[in-house]
């Protein structure tokens, strides 16, 4: 059975995804998710007993020596930052703790 998606459920998903949505947007998201998941219910009927999940079609990743390699220069690292203290080597963000 495809799930019923309520406005509260859509709000829970939006919060997990860090997206702000007004009530009318949540209602639309709920409707769309419900319709898409309804169509996707076709895979619930596929018998996958004993099937190992395949997260990738790539072979096992090749290993390399655990040796340090050059990485991005600090000036390049901070060049696109919205707010950075390049001299101190810091990205600046709004307050993390407290209200």
């Amino acid at each position, binding site marked *: 059975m495809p799930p019923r998606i309520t406005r509260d459920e859509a709000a829970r998903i939006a919060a997990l995804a860090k997206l702000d949505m007004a009530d009318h947007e949540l209602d639309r998201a709920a409707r769309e998710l419900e319709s*898409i*998941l309804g169509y996707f219910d076709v895979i619930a009927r596929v018998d996958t007993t004993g099937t190992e*999940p395949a997260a990738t*079609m790539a072979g096992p990743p090749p290993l390399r020596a655990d040796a340090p390699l050059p990485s991005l220069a600090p000036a390049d690292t901070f060049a696109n930052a919205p707010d950075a203290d390049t001299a101190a080597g810091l990205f600046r963000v709004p307050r993390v703790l407290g*209200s």
Partner: protein
Amino acid sequence: MSAAESAIALRDRILAGEASAAAVCRALFTSIQAHDGRVHAFQSLMEDRAIARAEAIDRDPSRFRGAALAGLPVALKDNIATRGHVTTAGSRVLESFAPPYDAHVVEQLEAAGAVVIGKTTLDEFAMGSSTDHSAFGPAHNPWALDRTPGGSSGGSAAAVAARFAPLALGSDTGGSIRQPAALCGVVGMKPTYGRVSRFGLFAFASSLDQIGPFARRVRDAAALLQAISGRDPRDATSAGAPPIAWTPDTTMPRGTRIGVPRAHLREGVHDDVSAAFEAALEPLRKAGAVIVDSELPSPSAAIATYYLIATAEASSNLARYDGVRFGRRAGPQPADTGALDTMYARTRTEGFGQEVKRRIMLGTYALSAGYYDAYYLQALKVRALIRREFDRAFASADIIAMPTSPTPAFELGARIADPLEMYLADVFTVGASLAGLPGISVPCGFTAAPPRLPIGLQLIGKPWDEAGVLAAAESYERATAWWQDAPAGF
């Protein structure tokens, strides 16, 4: 370059000093300036850098002897990083992002003597089948300007179709190279997963994304693919597979078995697409192929599996757009608490478009507690079954043939309101993506009634058998003349 000249023939003339790389480049920029206002194939141009590089090649072509793409202009989808040149991925969140490095494929192109001329229009973060979802306006199909060029690499396909560039790169996650190639009447190929490094390709769904070529001729797409292939330690999924053993003289061996999944072609396929597909089997047969019936996974299960996996991976990959290290950050609003979490949400809400948000929501749902097993994990299991079914089909066929897209180019804007209808545009392409297989789309006809719209034939091969797929495509191209048609006015 003349309309019928292949890119590699042009390369040979440039290397022989008989043609000027800079003159070729200037002619393209003149054409782009004159006509791209109607097409919007390009998101941005790299004119000065391109001309300077082309002039350097002209000064001493002998330095580039053996360079596979010497002097050839190439357009890049705007989700492929170019150092110091803004790369938007079609998103507001990256509208002024200048990558600090070149993608691996850009390094490979430059090593092969190519000239990068600009960045092409795409659906935001490559999520779409029409370019309707570009934050900067869609591209238009050169064959009918009110129609989509397909997506998400629609700008690259349109650029090649409109003769703005002989070669282009796109990325294909569920059909984003093959479908626009079909809708624009050009050649487009998705290689085997792992054939081309994804380093510098902005991640959408990492287990599916592959970069691949667009060209007018199979031989040119092959040369471009060979130039960008190979192992790159910066992408752990790029494989050290043997190089693609193909030259322009390679054609399909007689007796090649081409499988057709008849059961899936009876419904939901446009009449002209069906007719063109059936007609395309005849030249293949004449070229020595044996047409056999194949059984393939159900297309509707493949679509559901694909969209669950792709959106789950996307919801994780796009978590990086948080306004901290790069990209746009939303400013505080009067009612804000001013805390970090508020900044994240505001940045993402302002920065992402509707379709990207929809896919992040879907993927987050499929990965969330209580639904993970039923959706994401089940999709991974069905994916394993889909690969197994392809393996089984390849026991009795060397190549699988089907239409690339169930319909010719639809009108821009027509499917925005119905996401599911848009997703069904990928019904014939997602299977090869999920199974990691190489697939090509080659022009195979046009719609009967006006507007005259191109139709594509898709050929899918076994893992790492790009050479076999290219050989079949080359044989088909030699037996037909569809590739010679050009849209009027370009």
